[in-house]
């Protein structure tokens, strides 16, 4: 099997060990790291496509994302050393304060990370100030804020209001997510968007950062 085929196989099967072995092989045999990452990236994109076509289910998609991450973790120190930045952008993500639901958020974080974003996952029950502090600290492009409850959803508005107050609204794009979030709510609070699933969230994030 040629190398890119092997990458594809590892990612689509969600074989974390195989992905790790392949990454080590690249380093050990001094193969082109960028080529290897391209191979993995193609595979994860295919996983996303398969998901959207209804061939793949969430457990398979998540597992592919985890295999991808396992390989990237091995490449990271090398990229850092060479001062190469392949990151698509920096994202701070979390579930709002008062809300301890984080399945949806974790799914989105995993897909963003697998696609090549630098993702800082703050977890659940995160105060607004923490989102902003972290975004400033890592110089993020995008803040993703999730809320499952109608009672905590208002925190998404507070985040945007707080960014406005601090004159930071233009510095970060803001994506919101969670079951009660509607297009109307996005508009009402002035967020930059929301997506119906993790794969479209990644597409939206890419689009926002490119623009």
């Amino acid at each position, binding site marked *: 099997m040629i190398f890119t085929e092997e990458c594809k196989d590892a990612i689509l099967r969600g074989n974390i060990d195989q992905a790790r072995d392949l990454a080590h092989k690249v380093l050990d045999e001094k193969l082109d790291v960028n080529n290897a990452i391209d191979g993995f990236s193609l595979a994860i994109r295919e996983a996303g496509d398969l998901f959207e076509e*209804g061939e793949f*289910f*969430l*457990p398979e998609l998540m597992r592919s994302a985890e295999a991808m991450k396992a390989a990237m973790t091995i490449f990271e120190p090398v990229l850092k050393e060479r001062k190469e930045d392949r990151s698509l952008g920096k994202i701070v993500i979390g579930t709002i304060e008062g809300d*301890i*639901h984080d*399945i*949806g958020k974790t*799914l989105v974080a995993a897909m963003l990370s697998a696609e090549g974003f630098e993702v800082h996952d703050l977890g659940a029950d995160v105060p607004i100030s923490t989102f902003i502090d972290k975004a400033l600290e890592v110089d993020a492009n995008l803040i993703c804020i999730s809320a499952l409850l*109608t*009672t905590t959803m*208002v925190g998404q508005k507070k985040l945007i209001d707080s960014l406005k107050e601090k004159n930071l609204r233009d510095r970060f794009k803001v994506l919101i997510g969670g*079951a*009660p979030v509607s297009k*109307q709510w996005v508009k009402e609070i002035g967020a930059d968007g929301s997506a119906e*699933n*993790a794969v479209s969230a990644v597409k939206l994030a890419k689009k926002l950062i490119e623009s």
Partner: protein
Amino acid sequence: MRPNIKILEDEIKEKVFVEAMEILEEIGFFVENQEAIEILQEAGLNVDVENRRVKLPPDLVKKSLQSAPSSITLFDREGKEVTKLEGDNICFDPGSAALNVLDPETNKIRTAVTKDFIDFTKVVEQLEHIHAQSTAIICSDVPEVVGDRYRLYLALIYSKKPIVTGTFAKESFEVMKDMLIAVRGDEKELKNKPLAIFDACPSPPLKWSNLTCQSIIDCAKYGIPSEFVSMPMTGANAPVTLLGAIVQHAAETLAGLVITQLVSPGAPVIWGGSPAAFDMRKGTMYLASVDTILIDLGYTEIGKYLNLPTHAYLGMSDAKILDMQAGFETGMGTLLAGIKGVNMISGAGMMNFESTQSIQKVVIDNEIAGMTFKFINGIIQRDEPIAKNLLKVFQEKTHLLAHDHTLKWFREELYLPSEVVDRSTKEEWISKGRKSIGDRANEQVKKLLKKYPGVTLDRDILSDISEIIKYKDNDFRSKLDI
């Protein structure tokens, strides 16, 4: 004979119970609330204060189960008994706290306002087979912070039926409890004759949040029934196996039960839930799936095994319009919950992942509830001999339509649906305008709204609760249509 259904073998039930206790003993659960932590510490438990985790010894779980009552009687606003949540009795209430409504005129989902909830409550008040109300619809035209108490306020005014409700903010309990006391007369009467049930949802896996802990503690203090609504999602925040979800449900529910019994031994609690088969394509919590029904009936059997009143969110749909999916999901869930004898079956009217209430659907669901009551009564022998004497009648007559025996029994033997269910001939159906069930339900809604007898709550009590609910400059009384 009452028809019944069995989901779990007896040995499996004991296994689920034992493993749930092992989980609480070895892994423990997360408890966010300070008062709950203190209660657990006072009981001599070693709480990991930093991580807010506590482990429960099996003996304490068993002791708590012994003090929790196996029956809860609900009474209406006038003090009349409505139902006993025990054994295989069933009672229906609408699904609660919907963010949106399906507009009966446009058939579109939209944000809800006060009028939607008032109309809904007036209609449910007159539905024969739905014996309890719920604080069913979130009204977007009042401040969010008072939404929970405002819904209870409206339900108390427009309906006599007992109410399934819940707090969305810790501070609300005091106000809601005071309104219930004002209606019931005093604290003792409220304890003796429960008028409302408070839902409290632990967060999977094994977490009791600040708000939900507070709700069950406060309810236990006042003898108000708490309904635990554990909601594991298969393969996401719970094992993907249905039995695994049932074990997790048991562990989360037992944790809540222990807290309530430490606050006040004998505090009334309901073994409820709203687990969901996590949809592996959409990542949604599919609440009307056949898998969800299986989990619900399974954990209900555990609740019955532990001799507790039971509850489930069943008999709703995840459809967005009143289509065939809405019908089959609701029909399957309702009938099976009824056969199982889930004491409180919540969900009537509800669609779209517990987010959308439909006033038409609640009218349709009333029919399904009626048919379910009829079904669980089973087949009864009325005569001896059973049919022989009646068949002799045919020697002289060609039919039994006007026979004494028919007149005596037909109302009991046959379920007589309202006009919502179409039983007309094709010609009649066409001549009456080819109406769908949604159209017919909407006609029924309009009739019921016209027929609503008016608010019968004592005017002094109305003034009292209007005073209790006052919040900043909001005069909620002005929002009433009386």
